[in-house]
């Protein structure tokens, strides 16, 4: 036979194809689009395309006065809204050299830590859901609800509080605040055991996450991966420890550093951090000093001309605020260094050669919040 059936013969193993994970995809937690090159189920490379919900917050800040900027920062990383507010407030106070009352510092630190726990709880939900354990989602949300109730009682809203203002707070804490926090700690210390039983100890979860998506310490530093993800690689980057603000210098807590830098280590970092945050809360909650809830500020806040920078430790890493002021009541230029954006940049590097299921797990462990990436 001379003729052979002329089927197009392709070498399957070498053929790459692309799939769009997102902008609408259950594992991207929002409108992030990852163009993934796959070979079978192996990820060859991926390209994040962001900007689907870019709202131009930095530009919008340029027309707002400093107290007005606060409510925009809520909407970047909406899961650590208080901490974002804190960054701007600290920056304004630093520029004006205002001394805020001790009470404000204590309350801010406590609220920040509460917010961090709430954020990590939601991360735990979505990480569990990414891994396929749908029950995790409801347990996490159930416990987060307790924190949100405390927030609602004191600050009037659950997610976007705009509670801090330059120089202090919008209002004093509710009389029930301290009791609520203490009740929550007691409650959550019990419930966090469920988290460990359900997911941390689970053999399937451990097999799926250990040794997957490793970021070395060098890579973490060069990509600027901060927060729990960076600390999982051994990069000591906790702003609360190294450049203390609020009353973190008075609280006794550990900066836990991991070694492996894999998905499981990033998972464990956040689990540790929730416990550390509870420790901070326990130390501070009974010692809130009496005093004013805001420093006396001028009616119109004008920053002296110059450049200012302030960083805080948000739930996902280091949040930096950079302001150029020309002496007006609005900033000339405002720039946020959002932790998620830097963490996302490492995604391509760490997910080469992993399976598509691992990519979802890595994404969950990096814990990206899309509005913070796009701003």
């Amino acid at each position, binding site marked *: 036979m001379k003729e052979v059936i002329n089927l197009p013969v392709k070498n399957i193993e070498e053929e790459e194809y692309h799939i769009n994970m997102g902008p609408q995809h259950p594992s991207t937690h929002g409108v992030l689009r990852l163009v993934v090159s796959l070979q079978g189920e192996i990820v060859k490379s991926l390209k994040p395309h962001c900007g689907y919900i870019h709202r131009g917050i930095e530009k919008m800040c340029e027309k707002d006065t400093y107290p007005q900027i606060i409510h925009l920062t809520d909407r970047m990383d909406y899961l650590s809204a208080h901490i974002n507010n804190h960054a701007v407030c600290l920056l304004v106070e630093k520029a004006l050299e205002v001394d805020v009352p001790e009470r404000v510092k204590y309350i801010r630190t406590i609220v920040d830590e509460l917010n961090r726990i709430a954020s990590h709880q939601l991360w735990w939900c979505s990480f569990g859901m990414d891994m396929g354990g749908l029950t995790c989602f409801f347990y996490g949300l159930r416990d987060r609800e307790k924190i949100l109730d405390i927030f609602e009682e004191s600050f009037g809203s659950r997610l976007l509080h705009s509670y801090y203002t330059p120089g202090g707070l919008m209002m004093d804490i509710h009389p029930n605040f301290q009791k609520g926090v203490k009740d929550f700690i007691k409650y959550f210390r019990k419930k966090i055991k469920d988290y460990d039983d359900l997911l941390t100890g689970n053999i399937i979860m451990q097999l*799926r996450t250990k040794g997957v998506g490793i970021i070395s310490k060098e890579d973490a530093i060069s990509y600027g991966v901060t927060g729990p993800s960076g600390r999982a690689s051994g990069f000591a980057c906790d702003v609360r420890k190294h450049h203390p603000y609020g009353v973190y210098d008075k609280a006794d807590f550990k900066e836990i550093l991991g070694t492996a830098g894999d998905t499981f280590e990033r998972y464990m970092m956040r689990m540790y951090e929730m416990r550390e945050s509870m420790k901070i809360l326990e130390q501070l909650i009974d010692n809130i000093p009496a005093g004013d809830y805001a420093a006396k500020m001028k009616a119109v806040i004008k920053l002296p001309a110059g450049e200012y920078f302030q960083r805080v430790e948000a739930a996902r890493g280091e949040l930096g605020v950079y302001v150029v002021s020309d002496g007006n009541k609005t900033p000339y230029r405002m720039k946020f260094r959002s932790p998620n954006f830097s963490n996302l940049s490492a995604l391509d590097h760490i997910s080469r050669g992993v*399976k598509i*299921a691992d990519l979802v797990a890595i994404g969950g462990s990096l814990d990206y919040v899309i509005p913070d990436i796009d701003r």
Partner: protein
Amino acid sequence: MNFSIYDFTSFNQWIDQFLRSVMSPFWAIAVEMVIIGLAILLFYALVGLFLVYAERKVCAFMQNRVGPNRVGPYGFFQTIADFIKLMLKELITIKNADQLLFNLAPFIIIIASFMAIAAIPFAKGLHAIDFDIGILYVIAVSSLGVVGILLAGWSSNSKYSLIGAMRSGAQIISYELSVGLSLLTIIILAGTMQFSAIVEGQANGWFIFKGHIPAFIAFVVFLISSTAETNRGPFDLAEAESELTAGFHTEYSGIKFAFFFLAEYMNMFIVASIAATVFLGGWMAFHVSGWNGFNHIMDFIPPFVWYIGKTFFVIWIMMWFKWTFPRLRIDQLLTLEWKYLLPINLVNILIMAFVVLMGWHF
């Protein structure tokens, strides 16, 4: 033992004789077939609807929620409302899809589960076909369902569907081995593949107790591998929604999606009823030798209730799996099968054969 009050055999014979007396044998058979078909169809629909409801309630309770509670008392008619919604939804036509196969795939899946349900004994005499190779038949027929999944994945012309179909193919082909081998363990003990004979053989003790350790291991292996074969969590890689949106049925909508959905639950029902029949004594009541009064009370519960109760117990365990565990990765799934379940199963069969030879079973 006296099952006569709940025996359907004479009832069936009465219908048969009545039909034969009024019409020719050909038409009598035809009418009987139609009756059986309708009965199974009705049962199928009812069980499907109930299982969807049960799953939602079970998962809700495991997740500290109340679950559906708007439509009807305790949300009991929720699935009916869902079903109406799915019926009314638009059937989306996919561009560049292979329309014939795309439309055929849901039917293949649902027909496979229909064929399997025909051979399952619900009670004494309540049994559409009592094959002498019943178990083999059910395994054979249920293995056809995977064709539907593969066709659905390929013909949708979507990469997510294709990946889902690939995963499901690898998964079902390998887990069929474990299902077959774990059932074989019990076939060795029972000495027959006929469902009715297997159930009768458990009149004085369920096989899971009779065959003690090897039977229990076989039961566990069967549970795991049949969960995998029905594409349920933690083995739901084929439709892993956080990875592949909905896997092989990403592109389906409306009633065609409902077919996949229903077939998944019915497959779960089928494997659970096989487990109940083969390991847990089918419609046999629970008896403890010596406790005559207790046994007598147990006999008063109709066999159909026993059967349904056992089946739903197995289904509940499978739901418990799904709502607790995270999903496996494809390589771990195959490792579990080839490195753990299969060797354990083979050794287990040897042990069981030995136990049967020595007469150590009860």
